[in-house]
């Protein structure tokens, strides 16, 4: 066994401490050198990766814009392998997946992005669209709504409006017309006086089966652009369908005039409009409007009564030969024996109430016979149109 003297002991201990200190120092230096080397290599490595990521991302973007989502997917995946977590690339990839028809993958990808940014308008919109594709109606609506209330970069107001319009279209497609109308009216309420937007709103409101609201927006368009062919035609059609034949007539005439003055207008007049013009002209000739002079009004009432009586007689004959008169026709027959059916011109001239009763008999006759004996033709058909909106043209 070796024995150590005190001096040896101290000297050895000092040597040991010195040796350990030097070893630690050299280890520290080696670590620092290694760190610096790794640091500089890593910087170069990172910049090279960023370069590659940018290159592939640009390729992906270009492929996506060119309508080649499959190529875009490959490029964007490569870009993401060099710049993992790069938001713009991830969004593009998710979009490309959706465009390429990989709905489930795209949905999952967007869902992953949504996890980190649940309030992002674009992500919610994309999820809404994908959920709609997957026919998950409630999820689609929820995501669309989240998108409307979400955050948008740039023009948020415009984006939100577009999403709301898209949601309305989705509602219309799923026959939820009242929800669609609500969304459209909110959009319209917040929208500026803009012709294309008003036109879109009007068209969508028409699809949502709210012609009155649609007409309001077509009128807005015409107030700003009186010669707008689309608005003129659509407004004319709606006016006609709602019994405002005088307004419809005016609008169709205006449309045709505009068409003649600028034949390059893309919206050509269809035969339906020509028919509408003819019908509305004839209706305006037939209609016993209250604004007409009394004499003229009574003449028209008598003309209408004669037409209706003839129609009733034809229908009665047709039916009695077949199976005898039905109950509604019997009621009608009873009415044709009343005073309204027999009142003379002089009586009508002196009695405005009798005029109304006679016209009511005409309308009832046209309505009932159309139900029992089929749709009428000629003037009877026009009287039936008038019967649907008896007071539409009255002030």
């Amino acid at each position, binding site marked *: 066994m070796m024995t150590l003297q005190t001096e040896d*002991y101290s000297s050895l201990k000092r040597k*040991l401490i010195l040796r350990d200190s030097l070893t630690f120092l050299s280890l520290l230096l080696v670590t620092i050198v290694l760190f610096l080397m790794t640091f500089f290599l890593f910087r170069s490595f990172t910049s090279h990766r960023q370069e590659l990521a940018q290159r*592939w991302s640009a390729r992906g973007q270009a492929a996506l814009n060119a309508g080649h989502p499959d190529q875009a997917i490959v490029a964007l995946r*490569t870009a993401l392998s060099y710049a993992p977590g790069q938001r713009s690339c991830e969004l593009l990839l998710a979009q490309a997946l959706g465009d390429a028809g990989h709905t489930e993958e795209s949905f999952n990808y967007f869902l992953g992005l949504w996890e980190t940014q649940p309030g992002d308008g674009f992500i919610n919109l994309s999820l809404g669209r994908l959920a709609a594709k997957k026919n998950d109606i409630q999820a689609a609506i929820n995501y669309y709504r989240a998108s409307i209330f979400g955050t948008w970069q740039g023009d948020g107001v415009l984006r939100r409006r577009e999403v709301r319009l898209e949601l309305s279209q989705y509602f219309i497609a799923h026959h939820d017309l009242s929800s669609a109308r609500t969304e459209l009216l909110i959009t319209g309420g917040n929208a500026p006086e803009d012709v294309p937007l008003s036109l879109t709103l009007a068209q969508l409101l028409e699809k949502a089966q709210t012609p009155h609201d649609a007409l309001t927006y077509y009128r807005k368009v015409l107030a700003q652009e009186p010669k707008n062919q689309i608005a003129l035609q659509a407004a004319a059609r709606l006016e006609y369908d709602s019994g405002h034949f005088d307004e419809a007539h005016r609008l169709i005439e205006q449309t045709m005039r505009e068409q003649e003055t600028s034949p390059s207008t893309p919206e050509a007049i269809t035969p339906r409009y020509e028919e509408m013009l003819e019908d509305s002209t004839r209706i305006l000739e037939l209609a016993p409007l209250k604004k007409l002079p009394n004499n003229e009004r009574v003449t028209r009432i008598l003309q209408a009564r004669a037409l209706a009586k003839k129609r009733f007689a034809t229908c009665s004959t047709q039916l009695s030969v077949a199976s005898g008169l039905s109950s509604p026709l019997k009621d009608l027959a009873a009415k044709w024996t009343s005073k309204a059916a027999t009142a003379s011109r002089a009586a009508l001239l002196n009695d405005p109430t009798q005029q109304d009763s006679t016209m009511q008999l005409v309308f009832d006759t046209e309505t009932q016979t159309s139900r029992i004996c089929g749709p009428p033709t000629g003037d009877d058909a026009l009287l039936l149109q008038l019967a649907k909106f008896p007071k539409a043209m009255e002030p």
Partner: protein
Amino acid sequence: MEDQTAMAETEPVAPITLREDMIARIAPGREERVFLLLSIFIGVVSGLLVVSFRMAIEWLSVLLLGSSPYPHQPRLLYIPAAAGLVIAVLTRYVFPKVRGSGINQTKAALYISNGYISFRTVIGKFLLSALAIGSGHSLGPEDPSLQIGAGVASLISRRFGMSKEKLRIFAPIGAAAGLAAAFNAPISAILFVIEEVIGQWSAAVLGSIVLSAVASVVVARSFWGAQPMFRIPVIDLRDSRELLAYAALGVVGGFASLLFARCLSYLRPKLRSQPQWSQLLQPAVAGLLVGAIGYFGLVQVMGAGYEAIDQAMHAQFAWKMLLLLALFKIIATTLSFSSGTPGGMFAPTLFIGAMLGAAVGTFEKIYFPHLTGTIGSYALVGMGVLFAAFLRAPLTSVFMVLEVSGNYSIVLPVILANTIAYLISRVLQPIPILEQFTHQDGLNLPSMEELREESNLHLEDAMQPFTVPVLQGSETIADTLNSLAQYEDLKSIPIFLVHCSDGLWYTAKREELEALAANQPEEQDATTTTPPAATLAGHLGPERTPVLFPDQPLSSALPHFQRWPLLPITNRAIRGSLEGTVTLQDVLNRYQKH
């Protein structure tokens, strides 16, 4: 044996015995202090090397295979083949110890070469593994990182002239650091090293392992960022019935791991038994075949495959494609690994697991659409399943999934699926694959699974009811002699137990008591008072037999038999209450029965 030398490194003989001895005498607490500080340095240096290793792989990959490899590129065929040839030549002539994954090599260093891993091996492992993975061989970077970490630890600790015992312990510390940095998951790395390298929980080394793993992860994260390796999808388990689907995944994973292990255990020894010249060509042929898989469509199986795992997690493959990828990854990895190309098994295992998990998830989504789990959660559980079944590290597999996902709600599916897969693998493949590799290499490293499951014997297993006479230490010598006189066959009793007044015991030999009697005066004057030291305990002195309890390891009794022929075992709850006794013969008998 050639294979053995290829794995276990021979420690160079250094005249350090005297120095060690002297240092221990000069500065007795030095090793412990240096040990902790060095663990941090090992962690930092390992972290830096692993960051560089990963960089090297990616750089080589871009350089060799292009920035976006896609099928039908001719380079997919010739690059892995050419790289294989270079690797084979360098492995044969420059870096002969770098074959394999690195796990068994680290174990060999720990159990055979006193923790010694040469600098050359570290460099070789770094370069050749990076070249192999970067050129598209189907291998992973984690296991080589583990060996690089262990090599760094060995290198640093040797410079400090540590004792052999400490040098040995440094290897797993570095291994944990390397793995933690590669995997960005310190807990899993620590658990894996304990489960697979050390085999047992050891308080002596745990603190240092934790320190080095944390230090390396801090370094790695300062470069790569703190984000997990994969983008983790939404994980939600709403209905416990869905556990059945995960159980099915466990079954699929168990059988897949069996197939993978069988392929490896068949092909590896076959290729290693071929003539030397053909072994030079094996990595090239393997590279050509793996490249062919990529060339004809499955580029995803080339390299580590993390991007494909990420894509599988986000439902970007159809289930048939996922199954195809899993199958071809098994084939590709078997070829690459069996050919002796250096590289790890972690990443391929995770790849196969993720593909199978996503396939099961996609299948269930199609045919059982009411199940709520995302495909990503199945992929994640699948990774854990393969890890548990193939690498036989069930605890690590659970924590790995939790750590990677950062989501605790997945714990039930993971535990269930992993347990099923692990049990299937255990029943059908009793010897774990890593152990098979060591056997194939002609080594006899301890089986970690056996170590884990070894039932330790306790004192209660050898304890016998006490039959020896008990004397009270508080009695006077005279009273003791009277008590002894009651025993007619005193000469036949070799040992007595003395119960001392402090509650402790003293095992007295008959000779000691006879000596007491001999020293006692013949007649004692009745009028003289007995001094207090005249009690038996007083005469026996302050020494007592060690306090032992029934639940202590049986081996804890062994050091005391040199002094004490019989050891009393006492109750933990009641001080001094005797439960039984053990003798050396009892202990030996129990060990022989075990």
